[in-house]
């Protein structure tokens, strides 16, 4: 709490003077952890009406990594933001800013947002982006997205089938039949997210490294092996994100 107060004072003083280190709040490792506890900047941002026009400017900083299209990188380094629920976007940004989700690469960028209103604005802007036609699929490794000759591995179909069976057993209940998540409950859209990003986040949640995770999710995912997570990620990445898809460019095959 002290850290976030300090952060706020530094932010209002203008971050040009000093770069605050990322704060560290107690997350899932603590015994008093309450997932998605309301209050503070997060609740404030969720209750504000985001101004997408103003958010466009705030998003410029984000676009350097997540791309102006909100597509992220197919190799999974940066997630696709386009198509994600605003509630999820706000929660994750606020959690990173509050030191509940550790992400040293993103933290300084998240810290450049001035206040709850700007969080809401950026989320409103992202909500307006169309969903890119393609993203990272099973076994996309760094660099694959630059390689025009990349082909899906031979066992892709089997991976997707195995993943579907696993997904429908336990994941479907919260993340939905088509991976659409749940806006009101802060459950993210996972359909059509980059394969490598899904795999990394699930692994981190299982291993307790994503400190803002939902304990209900941790309980479920605890028993899964690496191999099973690979299949589940392959399946999720094979689904189509629900929502407003981008139009194919004329003269360009999908």
């Amino acid at each position, binding site marked *: 709490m002290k850290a976030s107060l300090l952060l706020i004072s530094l932010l209002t003083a203008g*971050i*040009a*003077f*000093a*770069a605050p280190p990322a704060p560290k709040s107690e997350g899932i490792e603590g015994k008093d952890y309450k997932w998605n506890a309301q209050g503070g900047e997060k609740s404030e941002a969720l209750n504000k009406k985001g101004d997408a026009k103003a958010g466009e400017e705030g998003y410029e*900083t984000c676009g*350097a*990594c997540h791309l102006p299209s909100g597509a992220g990188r197919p*190799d999974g*380094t940066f997630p696709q933001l386009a198509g994600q629920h605003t509630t999820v976007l706000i929660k994750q940004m606020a959690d990173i800013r509050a030191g509940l989700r550790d*992400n*040293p*690469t993103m*933290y*300084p*960028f998240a810290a*450049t947002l001035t206040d709850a209103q700007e969080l809401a604005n950026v989320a409103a802007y992202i909500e307006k982006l169309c969903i890119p036609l393609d993203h990272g699929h099973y076994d996309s490794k*760094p*660099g694959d997205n630059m390689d025009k000759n990349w082909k899906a591995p031979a066992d892709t179909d089997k991976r997707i089938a195995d993943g579907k069976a696993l997904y429908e057993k336990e994941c479907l209940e919260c993340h939905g039949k088509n991976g659409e998540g749940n806006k009101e409950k802060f459950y993210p859209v996972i359909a059509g997210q980059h394969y490598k990003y899904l795999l990394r986040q699930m692994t981190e949640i299982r291993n307790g490294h994503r400190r803002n995770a939902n304990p209900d999710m941790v309980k479920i995912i605890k028993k899964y092996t690496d191999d099973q997570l690979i299949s589940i990620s392959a399946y999720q990445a094979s689904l189509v994100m629900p929502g407003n898809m981008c139009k194919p460019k004329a003269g360009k095959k999908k």
Partner: protein
Amino acid sequence: MKFVMTLLAAGLITTPAFAALDGAKLYAEKTCNACHGPKGDKPLMPNYPKVAGQNAAYSEQQIKDIKSGARNNGQTAAMKGVLHLVNDEEIKAISEYLSKLK
């Protein structure tokens, strides 16, 4: 001698058989610009370095060391998250590009 001169001249106007990596393009594509500024002289945070005009050999060594974990002090955690995006050759090209910036 004349023959050598002709060869040299030919070499200058025809493109080499292998395309050299484009450091400027890599610098933007691999998200270096996000933290160090589009021209390498305006970092996002005051404790991130200005990298424009730095000696190529120095940049190259630091990037490699941060990638391998040999250097893990200061702000390196922020940079380590993107270094799987570049290989040794690309690191070299980016470092050479930076050394030519003012």
